[in-house]
Structures are given as C-alpha cells and as structure tokens.
C-alpha cells in the first residue's frame, strides 16, 4: 500500500509536464504563419475550425450558440466546494494528510486520536480556501463589469440597449465611436463613406496603428431598422478559432448570389471603434468562442526552482518517515521477542497477533507530522504577501501613467532572486518606442548640436525614473535663422524641410487645433512632428495630395506615386507635382543606398558623410535625404512601366521594386536626419547594474540589426572596445563553418565569460536552431558577455529562450512589451511584461508586469533576493521545526518498547503547526531581510548569493535536518535526565509521562521560536510578536487546556498538568537551560562561519549595523571595496586578445528606419493592407482626413 502511495507522491510532486501544459504555450497572434510552418498548430483546433457554422439572419430561434457571458473565474458558488477540494487534494501533500486522516478512523490504529490530523487539515484548507475566494471574488467582479456593459442591439424591429452578456449570435449590433465591441461580428454598414471603419486592435495584438475594415457593398445600404429587420438569409462561416487574421465566410442573402466574407469585414471582440461615428454588425461568435477569448488561454503553470527542490525534499522526508516507521516496527518486534513474555499486565500475547502492516500504520500515523502539514499554505500566504509588496512598491510606481508593478503570479517570487539569463526585447522595453528628431545636417552644416549640454542635465534629472520629458527634441534656432535671413544654403533648407513634410505615409488627424499624426512608422512620425515644430506643418492629406503650411501659407503637393519602403530597398520615395507644377521625386533612405544613386552634380557628400558617422557614434538613427527633378516625358515613360508592373500577378513586389529602381536615380543630396530612439529612463545604468549582478543579458528583437546594434551601444550593453562576432549567413554549411571557426578561435576561453558580443540575425538562427550545431552555437553564445539577436520571429525568440532553459539549466527571465514577446515570456522561467502601454497582451501573459525596464533592478536585486532568502528560510525552518518535534517521538519509542505511545497530548501535537509555531515562519517569510535595500542596490554582487542558490539545496536541507536531529535529541535527553528520579515536586508527588511531555513540548516551542529569532536577521515588531507571541500562546493554551477536563470531554490526561508543571522549579530551570544549550550549538557554528568564511553579505551586513560606520564611512567602504576586488579577482573576465577578421570592432553605421517594428509577419500583413486599400482608395492608405474633408 505504501509503495503505491510512494508512486503517487512521486508523480504529483514532480508534476511531470503533461501534454496539456505544453500545449498551453501559445503564440496567439501574428505568428500563425510561422506556426503553420512549424507544424505547431494543434490538430484539435484545426478540426474545430473546419466545423461550419451557419447563422440565420433575423431568425434568433435558429441560432443557438454559446452565450456572450464570460467568466474567467475559477469557481461558481456551486462548483466551489467540489472543485476546490479536488484541486487541493490533487496536491500530494494534502492527499497524504487526507490519507492519514482516513487511516486514523480505523479503530485502535491511531496513537494520536481520531481527528487530530483532520483539524489542522481543515484549518489549512479553510485558510487557503479564503484566499481562493478573495481572489475569485475579484475575478467575478471584473467579469461582472464586462458582462454588464451595455450595447445597442436590434430586437423586435427596434433598437434596444442590452447588456453584453445578453448578446446572441445573429444579433445586429450598433456600436458608436470609442466603444469596445462586445463580440466578433461581420460589418454590415457604417457611417463613413465607402462603408469603412477604423478599429484599434492594441488589446489583441499590441499594434498601435489603426486597422481599416470595410463592409461588403451588398450590405452597405442596410442602415434603417426596417431594412435590417427585413434582411433574410444566412451567413456560413468557419467554426470558432483563435486566428486573428483569418476569417472565411459566405453571405447568402435571399434573391442574391452568395458573397464571400473575409477578415476585412470582421470586427473582433476587444477591439475599439475609432474615427467612425457608428457601425452595424452581425454577431458571429460570442463569449468564449470569440477570437479574443480563444486566445486568452490559461498560462502554463510555472513552478519555481525552489518549489521543485522542496517537493523533492518532501519526498525525502516521506522516505525518512517510512524508514523511521520500519525501524520502529523492527524495534517493536525485537522488544516483544525479548520482553513480551514478561509483560503480563497487558496480556501481550493477545496483542502480538497484530500484523506487521498494522504496526507500520501505527508508526506512520505517529510520525506523519514529519512532513510539515502547514508548509504549503504558509508558503502560499507568504508568497501572496510578497507579491503584494511588489504591487505596493512605490519605487516601481511609474508616475507617468500611474502604473504600479504587478505580480500576476506569486509562484515565482523567489525565482526572481535566481535569474541568470535575461532576455530582453528592444522596442518598448529598452526603448520608449518614442522617436525624436534630434539633429540634422543640411547642405553640409550640422544643426541641433549645441543642445548637448542640456541633454546631460536631463539625464541627471531622469535619474528618478518618473516622467520622461518631451524637452529633448530638436532645438536649434540657427536653422530657422539661416532659413529666414537668406543664408546661402537657404534653398537647401527649404527643400530639405519640404521633403520631410511630403515624403512619408503619415496621416494627420485634427483634434481641435491640434494635429495628431497617425503613422505606422515612428521614425516618420518623429520627422513630421519635428518639421511641425520648425514651422513646416503637414496639415492635410487627400488621396491625391498633401497640404503643408509654411509660415501661414498653404502649399498643396499632388502625390503621383508612392514608391514604398521595404527592407531590401532601404528607402522610400514619392513622386509629386509641386505647387509650381514641376515633377519631383523625393527620397529618404539609408546612406548606402542613397549614395549609390547620387548624381555627379550632388554636393556636400563628404561633409554629410562625416556628419553621418558622428551621428552614428552618438547612437542616433540616420536617414539620408535627396531629391531628383523629373521631366514630364521621363515620368510618363516610367508610368507606363509602372502600370505594367503593378498588374503583374506573379512576384508583383519584385517587379514593382525593379520598376522603382528605374526612376530612383540621379539624386541630389540635401542632407541627413538623425533620430533618437529614446531609451527608457535609466536603462544604461540598470544594464550596468544587472551585468554586475552576474546576469547575462541577451537582446532578442524583431528589429533590424543596425537598430539593435545602435541600441546596444547606447544602453552600454556593448562597449566600444568590445569585439563583435557577427553571424549573418544564409546556408547551413556556412553557419556551421563560421561557428566552428569562432569556437576554435576562442579555444580554451570557450564557455567562459569573454569580453565579446555576439550578433546574429534570424535567418542564420534558423539554421542554428534546427541542426546539430545548436550545442556549439550555445557554447559560443555563452562565451560572450552580450548576445544580440535581430530580425527574429516571435517563435524564434521563444526557441532561443527554450534553448538556454533546456541546455544551461539556469534560471531565465524574459522581458518584453509586445505581442511578439508573448512566446518568450511564456517560455522563460520568469516572464516580465512592460505594462502601461496600449497593448496588454504581453502583460496578460507575463508573470510580473512592470512599467519601466529600469524597475527590473529593484524587482530582481531587492525583491528577488529578499524573496529568495525569505522563502528558503521559511521552508527550511518549517522542515526544521517539524523534524525537531516529531523525532522526539522516535527517542521516546526507545524507552517505551516501540509501542507507539506518544509523549505529548494529542491536540497539542496537532495544533503545533497551526497554532504554536505558525507565526515564526510567517515573520521569516514576510519580513526577513538579508540586508537593507540600499546595500542590495549598492552592491549588485550580493545578488550572486541567491543566484547561485547555495542557500537552498540538498546539502543545506540535510544540514538543517541534522541540526534538527541534534536539537531533538537534546530536547528529549535533558528533560529525561531531569525527571528520571521522579521527585521534582514539592509535596513529594510523583509525575507521569505527560508531565515529561509537557516539559519537552514547552522547551520545543521555546527552542523552535528562538531558532526563528536566530534565523531572523532583521527584527521588526512583527518578528517580536511572532516569536514571543508564540511562546506566550502556548503557555496560555497550556494553562487553559489543563482545566478543560471534565467540563469538555477532551484531554483527561492534561487535567491539572499546568498547576504541577508551572510550580515545578526544575521546569523553569530547564526553560532557560535547554533552549540555550540547543541554540548555543547554532550560535557557535554561525560565529565560526562568520569569522572564518565570511561572505560579502556578512561584510555588508556588518558595515550596515556597525555604529562605527557613521563615524568612518570611508573605512568600511574601503573594506567592502577590497572584498569586492577580491571576489572580482577570483573570476577575472577573460580579455580577448585574438585579432582575426571574424571579430569586428568598428563602429557600425547609424542607418535605421523602423517602418515596421514588429516581426516579419506583421510587416507582410501591413504591406498587404496597403495593397488592398490602394485598389479602393486610389493611392493613400488610412485616409481619414480625406473622409473628414468630405
């Protein structure tokens, strides 16, 4: 029986990853393509999607699908009890105690009474149940808020306002501007011309640009109630699935031919209607079948390393328990052999008939409390409060948008203290994703340079990472001065500024007197905004023209063609007819591509190039700006070419690009712009600190290599003297060769930390991740201080994290803000989302959400380290206190013939964990501080202690158990010697076994509480309450409990004990002596270690507490510095001296342009959306101003 139990324990303790859990790692958006490629898509969902759904229009009775009611709560009132109990008892430890409780019901088997395990178990389940109820109540409230939102729906031929939860499939919904949509629906008609509407999808995919949707022309006229209620027919569509970007359906209207419905007609739940007065839509998916809900799949359950180790240790304790029971059984057999004959007084012979199995059960029940019953619930509460501390932390409160840090799970608090690899997204994580136009060079003159000084001032100010000021924009009066006062380069300046106002894909949106620029490219938005500040205001866009306002005068440029940006072309151009009627081509792009196409007449090439290099050194993103005048016939000729190319069916993009090439030539250089991709506040400092804390930082970005390197430089991840290894290869063999070559070049330095930076792109990584060179690539990557992976798909990000997680065995943390980071956030041991931005997807899938990258410093170094120390101390202490008390039963077994008698009173023993020693673990787990927050931040090296996990492993566990064993021996032996002669009481009274038991029990409580005090480094008022309070609680309980019998029929043995025990002078002697003897051992051990093997932590702690510090701070600082140097010397960084062509040390070019910031897929999708709108709306995408003008 116990063998099966063991198997059961092993299974559940380890929590083998089930297929379900693995399946839960989803990449909910955008990456559907990748998923298909990788075969990650689940067959289940495919089959789901293949089910055809038919929706009958205006026939509500025929549409029966799931309700629009949404419940994210775990329990309902009725399901709470069964479900909660099921969840609790599927935890091995709880199941074990349930098993013990059941065993205790067998008559005569339990030496500890029938209900003594049941009561603590019930208390524990109740406490954890209350916690569950509180948490679930919040979820219910949130659900209620969503479910009771109102929406206008056509019911019985009139518009009625109903709640979201009452919306059914087939309903016709009317939504107005700014509303969130209650369900997935097909757009019928809208207020806008061409039946379009705009939706913000940032809730779903994190993309901030608006998406355009257009209704079918067949339904466009359906606007009045009458028309709508006379609609008849049906919609056939695919079954519910989680792909945002697909929808296949057909509209069958009576008397009309069927019309296909695609994703362009679908409005999803969770999106918000923008710039549109109203829309009408037919609901197709509701509730959990909406794509939004289909994507909010439960997070994979993450377990911390400490938790796993703890489970193993519980298992070990269980084995120990079995071993002790077996030893006791054998003892019982031997004792009966030797003495059994003589024990006439209980007729031993009648009882000896009990089988070995029966005896074993008796002893298992006797010793079962060796496994700490309260550990799980203690940890649960402790971690919950730790999470609240994270939530409350004012240092992680971003005042900019009033966002606090949020611990979305409390399972991983201690894991934060062990992070070794940090995977960071770039955009929105390291950077603010705010581009600012900083500098420019026009006709060989550099502008915007003198703001350097104020810049440093701002840096200093921004040390408090609260609000990012907008003040560090381009600010150089010389430019306008030159322009207005007839500087020789005046014309160039004008042309330059005009170009930047005209050549882009930005859409202006009027908001009163303000103009807000909507752009899919933040670079362009920055440029246009910068121009606006200089007085060149881009005011309006129509399908065919762009209007700019210069010095109060309006100029309209006719836009003839837009030659799109692509990463191959690295440039974008527009062909315009200027107000004066000339044809002109404006172009902006990377220096390399522009310089290739300059005409011989172009000037300022040299000066501009030096300026470009200068910008690059500063970490600024540069764009070259040039123009070319076209003649009428030249243009016409090209136009015919272009028309031909744009109708090509196969490889249209390619033929278009070739066509563009023909006209983009003979440029005249105007100058260059420099845009700052602004880092978030304190990012370089944070990265420096984290590097000092021995955390390796890998940047994984979907962005271009140039941009990534730029950012890595500006955030000091890569320093100028660092060698770079770049891997940009396009075949498996080449990749393999390159990696092998680099590995060989490193030689013995491989796998050690070197002053190297590895830069790899997604293309190369594809080969690396799917072959045998995985391992050697990992070795190479681990030898580098910084790793930069660019142009990664979301899936690749997750794969890299997985690679490190699986092969290195260190704790990984992934941080990101966008939808494309969800994969890696879910994959890493700890996922951190940047919150406060519009896209909530990363946050919703993360374990912790913080508003700024720099808060990672406090989260890891302070909360992480503290929580790790707290949790490990708490766990070890829980083990300790149980072992101390229950091993005493074993010692007692030696004097009572292994009969199974307990030395304590039943209820005392069962309340031990829930009453008398329940507070110290909490005070340790909640308030313990290994050293002050200030020191943890000042000496990031302290993080290594928790990172290495040396405070909690099998060795420490066994040491603690050994310590507990010694304590329990002392705690039994000393009182035993005290009472051996039986004459301790005044009046000559003799004592009984429970008298001894109460002595021992009291000493155990005192010792165990004081041990907690010894473990506590920082004693605050709660520690005092917990430690002294526990001792007092026991004494008070003892006093009351001794008078319970016979009023309440329990504990007859305890009757009168307190009177005899407390008046016994021996008792008070032992009260002081016994705990002192126990703890002196620990104290000596600690002192010796503190003297001989002092760590940095102890050094820092001493420095903190020492009074001398106030008088001679420098001396202590020096000591600590010396210690640091010592530690540093122990593991010196390996300087790389080899100089081969593979190690690049030159400063990279500064070109970077973020047309599409997300991954490959989204870029494709975006381009696709350009194409679709182009055919309908002539040229211009997202033309909101156009519709407005009409």
């Amino acid at each position, binding site marked *: 029986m116990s063998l099966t139990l063991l198997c059961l324990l092993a299974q559940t303790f380890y929590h083998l990853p089930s297929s379900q859990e693995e399946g839960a790692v989803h990449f909910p958006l955008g990456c559907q393509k990748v998923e298909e490629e990788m075969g990650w898509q689940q067959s289940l969902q495919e089959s789901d999607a293949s089910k055809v759904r038919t929706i009958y229009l205006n026939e509500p009775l025929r549409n029966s699908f799931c309700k629009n009611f949404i419940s994210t709560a775990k329990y309902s009132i009725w399901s709470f009890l069964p479900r909660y109990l099921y969840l609790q008892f599927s935890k091995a430890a709880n199941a074990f105690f349930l098993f013990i409780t059941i065993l205790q019901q067998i008559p005569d088997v339990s030496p500890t009474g029938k209900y003594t395990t049941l009561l603590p178990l019930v208390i524990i389940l109740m406490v954890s149940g209350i916690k569950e109820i509180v948490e679930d109540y919040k979820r219910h409230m949130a659900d209620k808020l969503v479910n009771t939102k109102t929406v206008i729906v056509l019911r019985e031929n009139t518009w009625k306002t109903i709640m979201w939860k009452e919306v059914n499939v087939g309903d016709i919904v009317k939504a107005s501007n700014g509303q969130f949509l209650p369900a997935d629906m097909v757009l019928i008609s809208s207020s806008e011309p061409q039946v379009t509407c705009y939706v913000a999808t940032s809730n779903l995919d994190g993309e901030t640009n608006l998406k355009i949707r257009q209704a079918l022309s067949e339904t466009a006229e359906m606007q009045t109630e009458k028309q709508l209620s006379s609609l008849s027919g049906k919609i056939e569509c695919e079954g519910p699935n989680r792909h945002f970007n697909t929808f296949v359906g057909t509209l069958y209207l009576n008397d009309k031919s069927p019309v296909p419905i695609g994703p362009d007609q679908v409005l999803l739940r969770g999106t918000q209607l923008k710039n549109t007065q109203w829309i009408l839509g037919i609901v197709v998916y509701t509730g959990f079948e909406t794509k939004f809900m289909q994507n909010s799949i439960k997070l994979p359950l993450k377990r911390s390393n400490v938790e796993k180790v703890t489970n193993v240790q519980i298992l070990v304790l269980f084995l120990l328990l079995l071993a002790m029971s077996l030893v006791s059984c054998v003892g019982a057999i031997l004792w009966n052999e030797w003495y059994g004959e003589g024990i006439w007084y209980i007729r031993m012979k009648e009882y000896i008939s009990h089988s070995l199995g029966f005896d074993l059960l008796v002893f298992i029940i006797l010793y079962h409390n060796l496994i700490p019953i309260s550990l799980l619930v203690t940890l649960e509460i402790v971690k919950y409060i730790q999470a609240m501390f994270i939530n409350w932390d004012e240092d992680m409160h971003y005042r900019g948008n009033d966002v606090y840090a949020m611990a979305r799970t409390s399972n991983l608090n201690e894991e934060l203290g062990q992070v070794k690899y940090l995977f960071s997204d770039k955009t929105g994580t390291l950077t603010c994703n705010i581009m600012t136009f900083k500098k420019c060079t026009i006709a060989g003159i550099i502008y915007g340079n003198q703001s350097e000084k104020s810049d440093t001032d701002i840096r200093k100010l921004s040390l408090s990472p609260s609000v990012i000021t907008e003040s560090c924009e381009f600010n150089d009066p010389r430019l306008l001065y030159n322009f207005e006062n007839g500087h020789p380069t005046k014309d160039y300046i004008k042309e330059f500024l005009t170009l930047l106002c005209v050549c882009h894909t930005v859409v202006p949106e009027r908001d009163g007197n303000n103009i807000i620029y909507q752009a899919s490219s933040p670079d362009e938005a920055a440029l246009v905004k910068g121009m606006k500040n200089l007085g060149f205001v881009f005011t309006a866009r129509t399908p065919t023209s762009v209007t700019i306002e210069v010095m109060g005068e309006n100029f309209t440029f006719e836009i003839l063609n837009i030659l799109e940006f692509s990463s191959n072309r690295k440039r974008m151009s527009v062909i315009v007819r200027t107000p004066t009627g000339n044809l002109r081509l404006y172009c902006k792009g990377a220096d390399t591509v522009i310089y290739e196409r300059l005409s011989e007449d172009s000037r300022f090439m040299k000066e501009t190039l030096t300026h470009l290099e200068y910008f690059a050194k500063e970490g600024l993103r540069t764009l070259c700006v040039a123009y070319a005048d076209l003649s009428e016939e030249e243009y016409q000729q090209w136009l015919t070419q272009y028309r031909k190319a744009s109708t090509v069916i196969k490889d249209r993009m390619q033929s278009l690009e070739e066509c563009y090439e023909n006209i983009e030539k003979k440029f005249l250089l105007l100058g260059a712009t420099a845009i700052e991709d602004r880092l978030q506040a304190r990012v370089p400092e944070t990265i420096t600190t984290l590097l000092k804390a021995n955390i390796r930082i890998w940047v994984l970005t979907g962005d271009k290599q140039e941009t990534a390197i730029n950012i890595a430089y500006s955030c000091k991840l890569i320093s100028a003297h660092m060698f770079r290894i770049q891997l940009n290869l396009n075949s498996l063999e080449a990749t393999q060769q390159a990696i092998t070559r680099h590995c060989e070049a490193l030689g013995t330095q491989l796998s050690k930390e070197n002053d190297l930076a590895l830069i790899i792109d997604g293309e190369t990584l594809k080969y690396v991740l799917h072959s045998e060179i995985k391992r050697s690539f990992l070795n190479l990557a681990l030898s580098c201080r910084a790793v930069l992976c660019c142009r990664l798909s979301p899936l690749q990000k997750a794969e890299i994290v997985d690679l490190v997680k699986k092969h290195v065995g260190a704790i990984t943390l992934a941080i990101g803000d966008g939808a494309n980071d969800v994969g890696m956030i879910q994959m890493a041991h700890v996922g951190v989302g940047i919150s406060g931005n519009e896209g909530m997807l990363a946050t919703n899938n993360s374990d912790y959400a913080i508003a700024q990258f720099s808060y990672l410093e406090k989260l890891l170094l302070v909360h992480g380290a503290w929580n790790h120390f707290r949790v490990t101390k708490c766990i070890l202490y829980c083990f300790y206190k149980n072992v101390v008390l229950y091993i005493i039963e074993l010692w007692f077994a030696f004097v009572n013939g292994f*009969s199974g008698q307990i030395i304590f009173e039943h209820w005392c023993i069962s309340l031990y964990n829930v009453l008398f020693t329940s507070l110290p673990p909490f005070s340790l787990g909640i308030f313990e501080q290994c050293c002050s927050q200030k020191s943890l931040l000042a000496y990031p090296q302290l993080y290594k202690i928790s990172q290495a996990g040396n405070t909690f492993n099998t060795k420490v566990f066994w040491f603690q158990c050994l310590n507990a064993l010694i304590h329990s021996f002392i705690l039994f032996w000393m009182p035993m010697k005290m009472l051996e002669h039986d004459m301790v009481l005044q009046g000559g009274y003799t004592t009984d076994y429970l008298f001894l038991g109460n002595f021992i029990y009291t000493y155990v409580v005192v010792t165990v509480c004081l041990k907690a005090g010894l473990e506590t480094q920082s004693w605050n008022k709660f520690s005092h309450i917990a430690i002294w309070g526990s001792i007092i609680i026991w004494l008070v309980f003892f006093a009351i409990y001794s008078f319970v019998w016979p009023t309440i029929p329990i504990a007859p043995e305890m009757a009168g004990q307190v009177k005899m025990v407390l008046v016994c*002078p021996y008792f008070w002697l032992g009260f002081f002596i016994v705990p002192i003897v126990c703890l002196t051992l620990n104290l000596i051990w600690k002192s010796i270690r503190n003297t001989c093997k002092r760590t940095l932590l102890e050094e820092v702690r001493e420095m903190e507490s020492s009074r001398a510090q106030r008088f001679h701070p420098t001396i202590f600082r020096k000591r600590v510095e010396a210690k640091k140097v010592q530690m540093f010397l122990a593991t010196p960084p390996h300087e790389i001296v080899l100089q081969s062509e593979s190690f690049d040390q030159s400063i990279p070019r500064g070109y970077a342009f973020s047309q599409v910031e997300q991954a490959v897929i989204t870029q494709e999708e975006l381009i696709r959306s350009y194409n679709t709108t182009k055919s309908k709306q002539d040229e211009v995408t997202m033309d909101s101003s156009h519709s407005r003008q009409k």
Partner: protein
Amino acid sequence: MKRTSEESQSRLPDNSALKQQQLPAYWLQLTATGVLSGFFATGVFCLGVGIILILSAKSIKEIEIKYTKICGNCAKLREDATNFDKECTCSIPFYLSETMQGNVYMYYKLYGFYQNLYRYILSRSNSQLMGTDLKDVGTCAPFSKSHDGTPIAPCGAIANSIFNDTIILSYNLNSSIPIEVPMLRSGITWWTDKYVKFRNPRSKNLSIAFAGTTKPPSWAKPVYELDQEDPENNGFLNDDFIVWMRAAAFPTFKKLYRRLNRIQYFTEGLPAGLAYTVTGAVTWLAFFSMMAIHLMLKDRKMFFTEQ
C-alpha cells in the same frame, strides 16, 4: 533604517513603512563581543545554578532498600499462581546514621515495569473513574469485562496491575517490640486527581454503588474495600490507586507511597540512632523478580524553600 525617515516625506500617506518594507528593524549581528559575552554570561549562569543544585542535593538524604532478593522466598511462593491468597511477609532491619530532618516520604520503585506502553496507557476509562458511568469500559481492553460479561470496575490494564505490597516502617525504641512509625496514607496525590479526575459513584454505600460490576481479575478485593477505615480513601478515591493510575514515563519509576506523620518523636523528622525495620506484606506481585522496594527518605528542606 535611517532611510525610513528620509523617505517618509516623499511618500503618499497610504504608503506606510509596512507596505514599503521599511519598518524599523533591529539587525541581528553576531559580533565577537556579543557572542562571547553572551557565552560567558550563560556560563556564569549555569555555574551558579550548578553550585546551588549541588548544595541542595547534599541536603537531601536518601535510603534505598531493595527487597527483591531478601524477600526471595515470597517471590518463589508467588511463582505458583495457586498461592495467590497466601500471605507472605519479610522484614529488613536498617539503621539511620543521621537524622532525616523535615518531611519524610516513602516511595516504592519498580524496575523494568513499562507503564508507558501505548496499549497499557490506553487501557483505562476516564469516564468510569469520574464515577458517572461505571459501565463505560470502552477503551479498557483487554480488562474491560469479566468472562461472564460483567463490566470490571476499575477497568483496564493499569488498574488491574496495581502495586499492592504493604510496607510498614517500624522502630524499636528500647525493647524488642517494634513500634510502627506513624505514616499518612492520604495527601500523596495531585489535587486535581483526588478532587476532579477521580470520583466515586454517588451513593451512601459504596458496595451498593459498585453493584453490577466486578473487581479486576488480579485484585484480591473489590475496589470499595481498598480502605474500609477511611471512606475518603476508599473506592476510586483511594490514594494508592490514584497514584498508580498516573502512568510513569520510564520503565524504571518511583511512586509515592506514604509520608511521615510528624508527631511524637517524629516532629523533626526521622531521628537517627533508632533501629528501624521495614516489613513488607508482599502479596501476588512478588512473582516478578524485578520487584523492589525503595524506601526514599527525603528532606524537603531543599534550596527552593529555604526554610
């Protein structure tokens, strides 16, 4: 903790030191001075206590007399179970070299008697001993009922195995006729036992009250005849019985048997120079070779009372 004061101003009022984990705290620091002084202080404390203990132990006098061997013939007699009702006595003379001043207690001591066995301790009925329900013998196995099904009172293994040797301490003043030293049979139990835990059934006549029950199999006489002279010491309230019912912690234990009645010669204690005799009326228990008597004479002028 200096930080608390610095930051408290910048914090919003609801951000207490507790929420920001800035509670004032004392840092436990094991400095050499602290540890060593604590160490020596403990040492001095222990030394002092030790000296006091040794001094007080010296003022206690103890005489232990083993009678297992001396009364060997009685033990032999008891080996044959049919002789259980035959009386057997033996006497052991001894001399006190020093006067035992103060209160004197007489104990008996058993070696290797496991009163701490799980099933032994379990085998009693507290509600029966409360006198409320004499028939409640639920946990008394294997001594709950006699063969004919009559409930045993007091039931259980503990009660059944009661120590029932009779020990009489006498002195010879100047003749050869021994005179009994006055001893008290009462006042040897815990107060709670005598007045809370053990109660006789409410009745004027104990033998009627115990009707319908039978005596434990090893007992010579029923429980209501334990002390017929003193009704306060009879039935479940018999002090010897109550003392026995408190199960000892170790297999070797002492139990209080009698205390000296300090009258006549004995107001000061047991005077030295007299010839004493211990006479044991050893009944059925003697068939255990490990039986022993321990006459413990103890001066209660111990260090705690400091008379």
